[in-house]
């Protein structure tokens, strides 16, 4: 469903991505791992339209999204859970969710989607009227995922969903992601907690210095030297 071909991205003179190829199929959960500064966040942001691609192409469901501004990319079924959650702290939990349904196609039946999200994260229903800033870190992460799901995405991008969360909460987050991908949504997760990512996803890509150095099933990846040395530090 997501096809990235030969993607290059830059920050001024510095090149962050050097020809990345990457695919995510329907209902597949794929992880992207690599050292800090390898360009993982850049890749996710470029797919989401938050960063401009220098060259190469990005396709979602056979529609080319390369260099489309973020607010239009969203219309083609791509939703993002940004690094550090970034919920709208001064808005209620419910307003955060409804904001997720801002795009026209999602607005139509937002009530149904809202119920589905509450089904996935019952805690959010309990806290619907509270300011998002008053939620704990784990609840905010759930809200960020719920908000993305409200956009009725075909592809869900997550940047570091475990960041700053207690292990017990990370369990819940990854359980929820498994449930999401089971409904047919493609999921691409960027994760520093490599062990966790490799055990939760079926396939993975290793990004080092802006290049995909290896990819494949997560079981195979765990065995490769590249991952063991440069990412896992073993």
């Amino acid at each position, binding site marked *: 469903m997501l096809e990235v071909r030969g993607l290059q991205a830059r920050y001024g003179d510095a090149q962050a991505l050097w020809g990345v190829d990457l695919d995510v199929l329907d209902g597949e959960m794929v992880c992207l791992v690599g050292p800090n500064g390898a360009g993982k966040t850049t890749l996710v942001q470029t797919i989401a339209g938050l960063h401009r691609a220098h060259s190469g192409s990005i396709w979602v469901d056979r529609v080319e999204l390369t260099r489309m501004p973020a*607010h239009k990319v969203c219309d083609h079924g791509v939703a993002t859970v*940004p690094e550090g959650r970034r919920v709208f*702290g*001064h808005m209620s939990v419910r307003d955060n969710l409804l*904001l997720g349904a*801002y795009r026209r196609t999602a607005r139509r039946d937002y009530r149904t989607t809202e119920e589905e999200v509450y089904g996935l994260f019952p805690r959010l229903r309990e806290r619907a009227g509270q300011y998002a*800033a008053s939620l704990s870190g784990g609840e905010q992460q759930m809200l960020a995922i719920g908000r993305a799901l409200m956009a009725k995405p075909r592809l869900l991008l997550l940047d570091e969903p475990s960041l700053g969360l207690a292990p017990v909460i990370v369990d819940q987050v990854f359980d929820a992601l498994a449930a999401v991908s089971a409904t047919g949504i493609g999921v691409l997760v960027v994760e520093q907690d490599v062990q966790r990512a490799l055990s939760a996803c079926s396939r993975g890509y290793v990004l080092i210095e802006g290049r995909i150095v290896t990819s494949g099933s997560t079981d195979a990846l765990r065995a490769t030297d590249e991952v063991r040395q440069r990412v896992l530090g073993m």
Partner: protein
Amino acid sequence: MNAFQVVLSGALLGGLYALMAAGVSVTWGILRVINLAHFGLILLGAYLTYELVTAWRIDPILTIVVTAPVLFVLGAALQWAYDRLNIVEFNSLLVSFGLLIIIIQIAQDIWTADHLEVPRANNRYVTGALTLGRLSVPTSRIVALLLAVVLLGGGHLVLRRTFLGRGMRAFAQDRTVAAAFGIDHRRLSVLLGGAAGASAGVAGMAFMLANFVQPTAAYEWFGIVFAVVILGGLGDLLGTLLAGISVGALTGVISQVWSQRYVTVALFIAIIVALVLRPRGVFTRGRTA
């Protein structure tokens, strides 16, 4: 004059203050632009009202049909420029201060430094009053308050209850994430800037119903408008309306009990106290983050 009369006519005057403050509050709260040029837009609204009434001999309220769209365009263009040059927060304060000075100078070149007022023959609001028993209220203030209730109340509902409004509030907090959910910040901010401009047109008209205008009037609005904006809470239109009415009542009482001259002092002390006690606005409900 009895005490109730003083408070009431002051509170009604608050409608005008709220109209003037609405645009400053939303652009500051949502777009992070502290637009001092908004005072210039109100000034232009006032002069435009004067010109139209003088030329066409029509009821001043009807001039909104022309002034609001014209100032919508001006406000939108201004916001477009701020957005393009990425002028927000402190820089916007400086840049818009520069723009305000330019607007005032231009106004002075066109309309001179004299006091101007709408021809009285066409302005039945300036002398009109509504009498309720022993109370008497100038019609101009009632008109201003009604306009404020409709405009700010409506704006409040749009911000709270619609997808568009939620988009604006979200965008105020985090542009990048908002964009990822389909919010086109250029379009929204130009729209919001335009709406603020249109409100300046209405405020300028409401001002002309009962006042003289001169170029430096813009400076005289600073104190009261910022008091209303800060007391009301940035971007909170309902708060702005309530703050406008309270500030109006306060100024009424102070000018009655002491002197007109102490109004500014009292207002600024009110701002300082408000900033100390309720930095997010006196009328803002709920917790602070």
